[in-house]
């Protein structure tokens, strides 16, 4: 199992993770995805987890249930305390390698590219043609 699950912990994240056969945050230290003794805050820990997941060829299953995406993306991307899931969403959006391996879910289904663009998580494809 190289996949991980993100989302609001109090909104059945553990069950969501089990449903997509992924590890949720309580399992990450024992899987060696981050070292609790070697990080001073969640920002470092989450970066370690994402790098390890990319290296393992894993997928990030991100449950957006309970997340105000607009507000999350408007927040300070360096601030993680008290806004953990929102911080994780922002970090994934800001890192193309992390975004590439992430599937986003809402109401139990995977969101389409068009829905991700509408939410502001993915930038729209630039299909403008050079005027000749």
């Amino acid at each position, binding site marked *: 199992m190289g996949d991980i699950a993100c989302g609001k912990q109090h909104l059945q994240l553990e069950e969501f993770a089990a449903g997509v056969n992924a590890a949720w945050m309580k399992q990450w230290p024992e899987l060696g995805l981050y070292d609790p003794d070697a990080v001073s805050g*969640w920002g*470092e820990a989450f970066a370690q987890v994402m790098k390890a997941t990319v290296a393992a060829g894993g997928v990030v299953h991100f449950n957006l249930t309970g997340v105000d995406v607009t507000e999350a993306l408007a927040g300070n991307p360096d601030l*993680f*305390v008290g806004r*953990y899931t929102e911080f994780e969403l922002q970090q994934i959006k800001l890192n193309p390698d992390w975004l590439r391996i992430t599937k986003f879910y809402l109401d139990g289904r995977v969101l389409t590219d068009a829905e991700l663009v509408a939410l502001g998580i993915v930038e729209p494809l630039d299909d403008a043609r050079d005027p000749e």
Partner: protein
Amino acid sequence: MGIGECKVAQQLGRKGYFGRVVLEALPNEDGEVTVEFDKDRATEWQSGARFGIDYALEHVSKRTVYPKGLKVRVTTIEGHDVDTTSSLIAYIAARAMFQALGVEPANEQPSVDFEKGLVEFAK
């Protein structure tokens, strides 16, 4: 007596500190002091919370503040796997306990040095 609530959400650079404790203090007619934890919302960091509550109770006058005993119900403990420690929860619970009792401690309150990551409890 009443409800006490304290929350810490502090970030200094890469260091994070997070925790929240809500508790309720009620008279206990049998003279005993009891502490209960909500089975759903106060399941982690109980030892830290218990230390903070005991610390607070040691630093107020039982005779004047809770002469008939005390029933403490910890209704919520929130934390995070990396940014929460038992010592931080102890600090938060102590402050929540003082608030629930409606008293200021005789000595210095517990404190946190966020720069150094130190939680201090005065004797």
